[in-house]
């Protein structure tokens, strides 16, 4: 049950990178891109939309017989997903990349929304409002499918976390942070802001698409309604802000807390059945208010960002000691 935590964390890492990159904006669009990415790949398996269900079950039985094909499709699709994510991120950000960060955010949001509408209305892409079933590349696992796939997701999440931590400790991350804190100063130091912004955005998009693709494989379904702004822009932001923007562990913490909360709410949902409205809105109401409260009272989240470590403190003291001797 709690293994879902793994997959949820993935798109959020995309956000973290973006945040440290000063392109707070990535969150808007790519999370929606995830869906797109995946659905395009699903077409590799399912040809005709109307017979989608039949085709999918046929494919599933094929895969049951030949697990290697399942695995191959899985990995191939992920690679394509990541690539397309990067490209889409690049294309959508390109016109707006020179703008101020909130202009960029709005633009990406708008583009994301519009893509969503297109998805809902243009059938060949993802089956319109109804959505598409996705071949279950893990169907050869039979009954153990659930556990295994959860494990895979957790491993994937940890893998990405590891990579991101490496990036976070690298010079690139420092540039990102400098860019975020003071663009003008960073530019004066000779850093090409636009290039770095785009980098942060593209990498973030790629991670987001990966997350989306993995999720789609997990639930075996892709439909525009399930990949809306609500779940995939607001919620990840909530998790990131709750846990702490700008550091990966904060994001993990935020994700855990959120999922735990959600489980609790679902558990007690039946207690509220007497209300004359759908309880899910109460949940969102609560979430929205929590977000506002966090932004007002503790915008840095639960785990604050640590300043980047470059050289150890002792070495610094040495250097300072020497230079002060020189000048006195």
């Amino acid at each position, binding site marked *: 049950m709690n293994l879902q935590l793994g997959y949820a964390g993935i798109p959020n890492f995309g956000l973290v990178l973006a945040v440290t990159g000063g392109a707070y904006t990535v969150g808007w669009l790519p999370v929606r891109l995830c869906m797109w990415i995946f659905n395009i790949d699903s077409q590799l398996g399912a040809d005709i939309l109307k017979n989608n269900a039949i085709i999918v079950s046929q494919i599933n039985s094929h895969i049951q017989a030949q697990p290697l094909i399942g695995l191959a499709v899985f990995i191939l699709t992920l690679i394509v997903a990541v690539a397309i994510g990067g490209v889409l991120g690049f294309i959508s950000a390109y016109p707006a990349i020179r703008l101020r960060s909130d202009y960029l955010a709005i633009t990406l949001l708008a583009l994301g929304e519009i893509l969503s509408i297109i998805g809902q209305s243009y059938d060949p892409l993802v089956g319109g409002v109804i959505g598409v079933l996705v071949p279950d590349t893990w169907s050869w696992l039979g009954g153990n499918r659930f556990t295994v796939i959860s494990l895979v997701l957790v491993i994937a999440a940890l893998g990405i976390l590891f990579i991101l931590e490496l990036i976070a400790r690298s010079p690139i991350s420092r540039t990102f942070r400098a860019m975020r804190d003071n663009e003008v100063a960073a530019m004066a130091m000779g850093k090409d802001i636009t290039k770095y912004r785009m980098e942060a955005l593209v990498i973030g998009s790629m991670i987001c698409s990966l997350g989306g693709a993995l999720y789609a494989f997990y639930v075996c379904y892709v439909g525009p309604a399930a990949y809306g702004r609500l779940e995939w822009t607001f919620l990840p932001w909530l998790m990131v802000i709750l846990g702490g923007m700008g550091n990966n562990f904060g994001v993990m913490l935020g994700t855990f807390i959120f999922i735990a909360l959600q489980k609790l709410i679902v558990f007690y949902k039946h207690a509220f059945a007497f209300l004359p409205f759908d309880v899910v809105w109460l949940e969102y109401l609560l*979430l929205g208010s929590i977000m506002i409260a966090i932004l007002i009272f503790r915008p840095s989240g639960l785990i604050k960002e640590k300043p980047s470590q470059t050289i150890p403190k002792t070495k610094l003291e040495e250097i300072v000691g020497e230079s002060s001797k020189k000048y006195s």
Partner: protein
Amino acid sequence: MIPPTLIDAITYSSLLGIMTFGLSFVRRTTGVWNIAHAGLVTIGAYVIFTCTSFFGGNPYIYLPLAFIFSAVIAVLEYMLIIETLRKRGASTTIMLISTLAFDLVMLSIINIYADYLQNTFSLPSKNFLLRKLDFMFLNMPGIFWTSLLLLITFLTALYYVLNYTKIGTALRACVSNPTLASISGINVMHTNLFSWLISGGLAGVAGGLLPLWIQGKPVLGDSLIAVMFCVSIVGGVEEIYGTVLGGFLVGFTQILGTSALSMVFGPSVILYKSLIPMVILALALLYAPYGIAKINWRKILTIIKFGGEPKRKI
């Protein structure tokens, strides 16, 4: 006789202009892109729906109520959230996220309310169209006349207020130089409040008019917010009338473009309708990032007329 597509285009553009004006306005005066503007629009729609469902009558008479409701909520949003964040030194992006959260809160409340109406009173509150309550004048739907008239009246009133009244000039002063305005004795928070009030109210009015033309539902505002941002950016936030211009540009292109494209490429109406604002936005960002109102038309005309810019004499 005016072709129906043109009527559509004018109505849509006028509504877009009224609806989006507030978005640009608060951006210009307080520096915040208010995503919750979507919610403010939806609230207007639900005010009209509630009133016509319970009290009957012409939906137009309830418009002032829609204005008040949305205006009040906008002011609340400003005072409780935006000002609080500003005092704590929050960045514009943080304020942006907070408006997203507030929009969610509003959406939840609207949905709860709509559910309540539906379950308790069997009203079609999740999906309603009020076209049948509209009147016809000269063979054209009332909404066409009202939206256009409202837009023109509003623009005239705005021009007058901004240039001939004290508060209007103070508003322009605050936009031009808030610190100096403060030093001169203008209470900048009051002028900001005023701008949020007007923005919210206008959103409510536009939202109240929308169900006379398209389906009203809880996500009404949210479904249009993307286009609103397009309009705002394309029209340009700097010039105060740019948004209206943007509204007409986007509106006309969407409607006329869609019908043109479906004649040539086949009926994927919604696809075109959604793609067009995206294309316009991308073009605008690449070639006129400050909006069409800021394009140096004189320069372009000179280049066209004389084949180049005039060279200075030394």
